[in-house]
Structures are given as structure tokens and as C-alpha cells.
């Protein structure tokens, strides 16, 4: 058993691409090994800013010759089948195949001889194919070459069983080929010269000595552990940021976290601004004080062990942060000189969408909707709602949001507070994009609710009106998120919002239904029950809809519910079978049965029980649990009916039709609560 070690050393690979590239390399090499019939016990791939590495263990040193027979289509089969067979067998014409009579007819057979031999003969081709197939999100050529890689490729370590594999990669043009070898390089600054390696264990160990931690997971651990230790020494806490940690681990081969200080003059700039500026521009971690407020310390992760212990590096980083924050503070001070109201004209210059006009026009639509929505949101006064809606996009033309688009809304809130606008208005401006995802907080204040709903409804209605509906994979305007946002706001705040009041499009309502199913599935709500309730049509109040869904679902969980569902199925089936026989039947059994035609006690009992129900008034008063209890009461008479009464009597068609009417009435009654035919067993 032997080991394959591969390392592709290049100039610095973008952090965001490393993890995926390592996985792709592993997948491609493993697929190549399997296709060549080479078994292996384990394969692992790694990425650092300068290298992709892969190790596969337990490979055989040689393969035996393999003879495979492949049966193809029948002789004389259509050409398409023949071509498919040739392609899959790697043949170019039927001359290379042979005919054989299998006893069940004559078939084509391909004989594929896989040449065995030493494993090392197969590996260079596998490596070459994997490198060609590696799907970098963006790649480039360099020098005079034509080969593409993420950045210029520098060297290749390719060892099998401790020996260098024969092979090379030709970048093309006038450039020398990159030969497979057994040498690599360590850290760009903390290591000098070439490193000769004999296998993976040796490679990983020597890299560590040369200040390269091969495994990104270990680099992350080191960053976290050292950063937390530094923070603890000055009584602050590291603000967790998984995305940043991931990126930082891709920027350093030898992580050295260092603690810096934010200049005090910037601590009155909103913390969101400081955090965004540190994160997006500088990749610094923020820290918090014990009370949760932003602390004046930050953590920068260097890629170097400096001989002054990092003092110069920290000084430099503090200095660059000062200039970054000076700019942010400049925007903060400048922006507050202009009232949000006075920014509105500038929204006329921003095109929101070619077919939907400017941001200013959009704001008008949002404001119109918000006022209308406010009527359904208890405690949302029209005045503040209208004001917040009108101002909610004003910060888009502020300097700060121009610099940091992700602070939209957040800055509007601060500027509104600065103008002494009511807190509810400021909060609504700050909240109106929320919830941005399933884990984002959901607005709960009345004014915020109205504006946040209006913002999302406007998107849906507008994009729907120009035919920009999301398709399976494309949702460029994040309309799914908008619909999910509306659902969350409405449901979590129990807002009785008649959606149909705001739009006519039926398929938009269906879109909501689909999103709602996705939304509630996690909470254990059955999608078929949602379907059953939606199928009634006309329901556009999500709160009422979910109350009904919950009642139906818990009813179906009881014995009475299960039995009734069976009885319902039986009733519907009988009617359906008869309807199939007689196309005109549906018309004949519409309407109520005639009590004078009843012959058996069970018919009368069932009929009077159905007649005594007050389902519609219960439903009207949204007493869905009561309605379910009513339905539960049907179980006994229905069971008795089926036990004693023959529906399809052959000698009395009038009686038969009357009984079918009764069954139809069961269906109609139950369907007034939910379309039980949608319920899956």
C-alpha cells in the first residue's frame, strides 16, 4: 500500500476560493483514481493562501490487467442505441465490437481490456486531468502562456510511494514546463529556500517548521484561541464572526493575532459603522465590553512573526484604521447636516428598475401601501407610518451608505434620531428591511411592521406587474425573501392582513402559499394540511389560515380525526365511482337529500346530525377547534351509516340518488373546513 502526495504551489489564492478548490481537487483526483480502478483508503485535501495539497492513502503499487465485457444493444437495434453503447464502451465503430448469441437473441459485446501495470504510470494522467478540470471561479493566464490557473502556478510536488512521479505541466508559450518534483517552499517571509519532502507526514511537519499550518481548520482554531486570550487580558470579548474567521484563515499561512486600539475620538460614531469599517476594509475582529457595548479594542491577524513582537504591525494597523474611521466620521458629520426630508429629491435621480421608475416613485408606492396596511396593524398611527415610509430610503443618498451599502436603514435610523424625529419613526426606518433572512430579527413595533410590510409588498407587487417572477433557480430581486419576510412579520405579530386587498394576481397568492409551506414545515406543520386549507380558496389572512391549519392538523392526530378521514375517503370514493359511470350524475345529486325518502334510521341520524352542525358560524367566528369538535361528532353516525346502509341499491334509483346526495353532503360539510381530499393518508 502506498501514498500519493500532491501539492500545487502558486501565487496567493483568494481566500474565498480556497476551501472549495481543495474539495474540488479531492473530488477530481478521487474520481480519477476510481475510474482507473485504483482503490484507496482515505483522501484528504488542504488549502493555504499559496497551495492546494492532497494526500491519498492505501493505494496499490500496481494493478492487474482487467478484462471487462460489456453487453450492448440487440443486433439491429436503432442507431441511437448503438451510438450510446459505442460511446459508453469507448469504441469508435461496431467493427471493434463482437456479436454474440446469448440464447435470447444476438447482442453486441464490447471487450474492454484495461491494461494494468504500475500505479505510478496511471497517476500523472489523473493529476493532469484533475488540474485541467478544477473549476476556479475566476482564472487567468500569465507570462506568455496559455494555461489558466487561479494565479500563476509555481511548482508541483507529486510523490507516489515516496518517489517523484514522472510528469509536468506546460504553461505554454515560451515558458518552461513545470516538472513534478519533491520540493516546495515554506512561508513567504518566515522561511527561506526550498524544502525537500518524502511523503505527507514529512511534508506537513516540514511545512510547520517552515511556518505554514496546512490545515485551515487548525489555522482557525489558532486564531480563535490566541485572539480570545489577548482579549481576556484586557477584559474584553471577541465578537464572533464566522465569515470573517473563514476569510482570515485564508489570508495567512501562519496566523498571529494582535490586539490594537481604536482611537477614542471615533468612539461616538455609531458602533455599526465602526464594525463594518473594521470588517470590510481591514478584516479586523471587533470586541465588546462586559455590558455588550463595543469596546475600543480590535484584533488583527497578521501573517508574520515580527522581530519587535508586532509593535510596528499594530502601530501601522491603528494608523490605517484612524484614516478609515476619519473618513467614516467625515461622512457621519456631513450626513447629519442634511435632513432626511431634504434628501428626498435626490431619490429621483436613482433608477430603481428600468420598468419601475426611480427610487422616489418607489417610495411613493411604499408610502401608499404603508398607510393602507396601517389600518390593519393595531397601534400603527397613520401619521408616523406615512412619515417613516416616506423617509425610509432617504439614507441611500447619504455619504455613509454610499460608502457602506450594508448600513442602509441603520444610518437612516441614526439620522432620524439626530433630527429628533419620533423614536417609532426612526426605528421603523431602521427596521424596514428586516427580516433579511430566517435568523434575522423580525420587526415587532406597530409603525415598523407597517413600513416593513409595505417595503416587501411593494417589491412583490411591482415585480409581479412587469412579469419578473422568480423561477426555480433565478430570483434576482429576492422576491422569495420578501414573501417569507411578510409571512414572518404577519404570523409572528398576528397581524390580520387581508393580502388580497393589496393585489389581484392569483399566482402571487399561490406564491405566498408555497413560501408559507416552506416556512411552517420546520415547525412540523404538514404541507398537505396547508394545501387542504388553501384549496378552499379565498383565504388571504395568513393568521386565520394557520389557525385553521393547526386545528385541522391536531384533529387529524386524534382517533376521531383519523376515522373520520377514512369515512370521508369512503364517501368521496363511492360518489366518484358512480360519477365516473354516469356523467350526468353530478347534477342529479347536487343539493340536499330529501328526508322523506330516507328508509333507515342511520340515514336519518346522519342527516339530522349534519343539519344540526353550525360549522359556518364557528368558522366565521374563527372557532376552528369548535368546528373540529363538531366534525368529530360525525364519526359515530357516519360509521353506523356505512355499516348498515347500502348506498347503491339496484332496485330503487330514487333511493340510491338520495343516499348519494347524503354522501355528497358529508363531503361538502367537511370541505367547508378544509379540502380533505388533499390530505395524504
Amino acid at each position, binding site marked *: 500500500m502506498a501514498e500519493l502526495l500532491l501539492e500545487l504551489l502558486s501565487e*496567493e489564492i483568494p481566500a474565498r476560493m480556497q476551501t472549495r478548490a481543495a474539495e474540488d481537487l479531492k473530488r477530481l483526483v478521487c474520481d480519477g483514481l476510481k475510474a482507473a480502478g485504483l482503490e484507496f483508503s482515505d483522501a484528504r485535501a488542504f488549502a493555504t493562501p499559496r497551495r492546494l495539497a492532497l494526500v491519498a492513502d492505501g493505494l496499490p503499487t500496481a494493478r492487474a490487467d482487467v478484462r471487462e465485457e460489456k453487453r450492448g444493444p440487440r443486433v439491429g437495434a436503432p442507431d441511437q442505441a448503438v451510438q450510446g453503447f459505442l460511446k459508453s464502451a469507448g469504441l469508435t465503430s461496431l467493427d471493434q465490437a463482437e456479436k454474440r448469441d446469448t440464447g435470447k437473441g444476438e447482442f453486441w459485446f464490447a471487450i474492454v481490456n484495461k491494461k494494468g501495470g504500475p500505479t505510478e504510470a496511471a497517476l500523472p494522467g489523473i493529476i493532469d486531468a484533475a488540474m485541467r478540470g478544477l473549476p476556479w471561479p475566476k*482564472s*487567468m493566464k500569465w507570462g506568455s502562456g496559455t494555461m489558466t490557473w487561479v494565479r500563476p502556478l509555481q511548482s508541483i510536488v507529486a510523490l507516489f510511494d515516496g518517489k517523484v512521479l514522472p510528469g509536468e505541466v506546460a504553461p505554454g508559450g515560451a515558458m518552461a514546463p513545470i516538472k513534478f518534483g519533491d520540493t516546495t517552499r515554506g512561508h513567504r517571509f518566515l522561511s527561506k529556500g526550498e524544502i525537500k519532502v518524502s511523503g505527507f507526514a514529512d511534508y506537513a511537519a516540514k511545512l510547520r517548521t517552515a511556518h505554514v499550518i496546512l490545515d485551515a481548520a487548525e489555522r482557525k482554531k489558532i486564531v480563535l484561541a490566541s485572539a480570545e486570550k489577548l482579549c481576556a487580558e484586557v477584559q474584553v470579548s471577541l465578537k464572533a464572526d464566522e465569515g470573517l474567521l473563514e476569510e482570515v484563515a485564508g489570508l495567512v499561512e501562519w496566523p498571529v493575532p494582535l490586539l490594537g486600539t481604536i482611537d477614542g475620538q471615533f468612539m461616538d460614531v455609531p458602533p455599526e459603522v465602526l464594525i463594518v469599517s473594521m470588517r470590510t476594509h481591514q478584516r479586523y475582529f471587533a470586541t465588546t465590553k462586559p455590558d455588550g457595548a463595543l469596546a475600543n479594542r480590535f484584533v*488583527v491577524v*497578521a501573517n*508574520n512573526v515580527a522581530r519587535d513582537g508586532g509593535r510596528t504591525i499594530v502601530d*501601522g494597523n491603528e494608523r490605517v484604521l484612524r*484614516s478609515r474611521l476619519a*473618513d467614516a466620521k467625515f461622512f457621519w458629520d456631513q450626513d447629519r447636516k442634511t435632513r432626511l426630508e431634504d434628501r428626498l429629491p435626490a431619490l429621483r435621480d436613482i*433608477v430603481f428598475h428600468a420598468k419601475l421608475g426611480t427610487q422616489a416613485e418607489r417610495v411613493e408606492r411604499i408610502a401608499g401601501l404603508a398607510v393602507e396596511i396601517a389600518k390593519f396593524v393595531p397601534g400603527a398611527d397613520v401619521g408616523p407610518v406615512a412619515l417613516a415610509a416616506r423617509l425610509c430610503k432617504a439614507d441611500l443618498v447619504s455619504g455613509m451608505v454610499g460608502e457602506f451599502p450594508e448600513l442602509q436603514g441603520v444610518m437612516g435610523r441614526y439620522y432620524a434620531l439626530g433630527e429628533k424625529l419620533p423614536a417609532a419613526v426612526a426605528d421603523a426606518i431602521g427596521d424596514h428591511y428586516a427580516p433579511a433572512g430566517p435568523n434575522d430579527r423580525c420587526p415587532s413595533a406597530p409603525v415598523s411592521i407597517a413600513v416593513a410590510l409595505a417595503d416587501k409588498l411593494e417589491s412583490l407587487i411591482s415585480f409581479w406587474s412587469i412579469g419578473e417572477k422568480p423561477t426555480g433557480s433565478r430570483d434576482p430581486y429576492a422576491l422569495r425573501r420578501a414573501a417569507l419576510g411578510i409571512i414572518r412579520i404577519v404570523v409572528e405579530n398576528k397581524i390580520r392582513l387581508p393580502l388580497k386587498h393589496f393585489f389581484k394576481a392569483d399566482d402571487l397568492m399561490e406564491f405566498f402559499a408555497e413560501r408559507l409551506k416552506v416556512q411552517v414545515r420546520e415547525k412540523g406543520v404538514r404541507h398537505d394540511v396547508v394545501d387542504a386549507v388553501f384549496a378552499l380558496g379565498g383565504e388571504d389572512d395568513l393568521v386565520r389560515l394557520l389557525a385553521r391549519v393547526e386545528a385541522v392538523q391536531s384533529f387529524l392526530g386524534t382517533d376521531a380525526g383519523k376515522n373520520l378521514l377514512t369515512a370521508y375517503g369512503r364517501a368521496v370514493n363511492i360518489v366518484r365511482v358512480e360519477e365516473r359511470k354516469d356523467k350526468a350524475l353530478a347534477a342529479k345529486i347536487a343539493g340536499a337529500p330529501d328526508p322523506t325518502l330516507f328508509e333507515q334510521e342511520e340515514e336519518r341520524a346522519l342527516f339530522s346530525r349534519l343539519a344540526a352542525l353550525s360549522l359556518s358560524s364557528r368558522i366565521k367566528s374563527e372557532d376552528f377547534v369548535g368546528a373540529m369538535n363538531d366534525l368529530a361528532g360525525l364519526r359515530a353516525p357516519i360509521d353506523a351509516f356505512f355499516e348498515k346502509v347500502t348506498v347503491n341499491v339496484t332496485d330503487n334509483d330514487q333511493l340510491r340518488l338520495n343516499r348519494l346526495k347524503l354522501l355528497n353532503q358529508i363531503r361538502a360539510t367537511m370541505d367547508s373546513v378544509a379540502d380533505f381530499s388533499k390530505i395524504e393518508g
Partner: protein
Amino acid sequence: MSDPSARLKPTCFQELILTLQDYWAAQGCLILQPFDMEMGAGTFHPATTLRALGPKPWYAAYVQPSRRPKDGRYGDNPLRLQHYYQFQAILKPSPSDILERYLSSLEAIGIDTSLHDIRFVEDDWESPTLGAWGLGWEVWCDGSEISQFTYFQQVGGIEVGLVSGEITYGLERLAVYLFDKKSIYDLPFNRTDSEVPLTYCDVFLENEREQSAYNFEVADTDMLFRHFADAEKECIRLIDRKLPLPAYEQCIKASHVFNLLDARGVISVTERQSYILRVRELAKACCEAWLATQTAEAA
């Protein structure tokens, strides 16, 4: 100082420029002088834009005064200017040790890599107005961007044959770093022990104030719109006459006038895109015409 490679570490702004020139000259680069027109970046210099195309190798380095009207801060921001200097080196085709050469240039100007944290952070470069893009990095020194490094893949909408490695040093920022100043204006322009020692402030503060006022408040926009239209027309006419070099100068002019109009805030968002496209069309036409002369020469 007879041996240029023995030049001491720079102590002032102009010595930084001289050191970089010496260094890149020793790497085999032509040392060119700034192009005598206003432009937003050293990349606009024909020694980069045009020379990046065509089959001939080209190593050159030069300082280019660069103007970004929108970046003006009336001299109030210690690290932002509307007029600043870029030092640009272009190596075509990019040699395989170009990063090492770049890092040695940092050592030459006095950045001790055993004290600092040098990082290559992904930065895909794209110039919409030049129809150009490339892949590379921002180079960070202790969190401060000190250079941009780009492998050109396309220029003027044309895919390059030989790939140029382009290195751009933002000289003021780099100097602030090297000489440990809080503000660009505190930089010694010449040596502090000179007979007449002067700072960056002495040379440029007033310029920043006046130019910011011009860029943001005073520039005659009607005139600028006319200039844009004229430059565009002239560029197209010169391409028709098969004079890509003078045509490209008109393209540079149009680009700068657009930047001024943009800073004055008289170009709406939708118009903005169409102006950028217009400049790009000019750049493309110039590049195509220039490439035609190069290929004709090579043939």
C-alpha cells in the same frame, strides 16, 4: 552615490521616487516620464494601456500624476487627495519571479519584511472606461494598501496575448507609511537637511483646497460637457484617419472631463453608465487601431 543600487533608504518623498526608479531600471525597465495629460491613474498612460497589447515584450516604469476629482477633501483629510502620484511598473510578459521582484522593491525602499505584515489580498481589477480587466491583489502592509498588482487579461475589450504584470504604488500612502507620518501633508518632500526643506503641505495643500473647490463647486459644467463632446468627436475622427496615438489622447481627455462632471454631481446615475460606455467605445477603438499598427509592424 555613483552606484545607483547603493542608494540609501529613502528619507523623503522624492527619494522614494528616485529609489523606485533606480530599482526598476536595474530590473531592466525603461524609465519613462509622466504623460503630459490629466488622467485618473497610471494605467491610462499609453505606456501601459496600449503597450499591454500586441506581441512585443515591454518593461517600463514611470511616475504618473493622477487626478481623481471626486476624492478631493479640500485638504482636510490627512490621507485623501484629488491629485496624487502613482508609480507604475509594467512587465510584459510577466516574469515568473515578478512577486519576488516586487517584494525586493519594498526592501529597497526600506520596508523591512521582518518587522511588517505584508499580505496579498484578492483584488480583481476592472476599468469600465478602458474595457480592461485583470486578476491580482491589493498588497497590504500592516493593513494599509501600499500597491496594486494586476495581471492584465483584457485591455480595450481585446484579450491580451502576452500577459503584463502591472505594479502600482500609491506613492503618498506608501510614503506616509515609510516615514511614519499621520498625514500626507507632513511628508518631507525633499530631505529635511536640505538647504530649503519643504513638506508635501508646502507644495500641495493650497492646490488641494483650490482644486477641490474647482472640482466640486466652480467648474463650468456647460464648458465641460462641450469639451467632452469635442474630445469624443475628435477621437473618432482621428481613428478614421488611422492615428491611434493622438486619438487615444482625446480618449484620455474625455475620461478626465467625465470625472470632473461626475464630481460636480451633474451626471445622473443613468447617464453615468452611458458616459462610461462612450469612453469605453473610444478606448476600444483606439486599442484596436493601435493593435493593428503593431501587428502590421511585426508582420
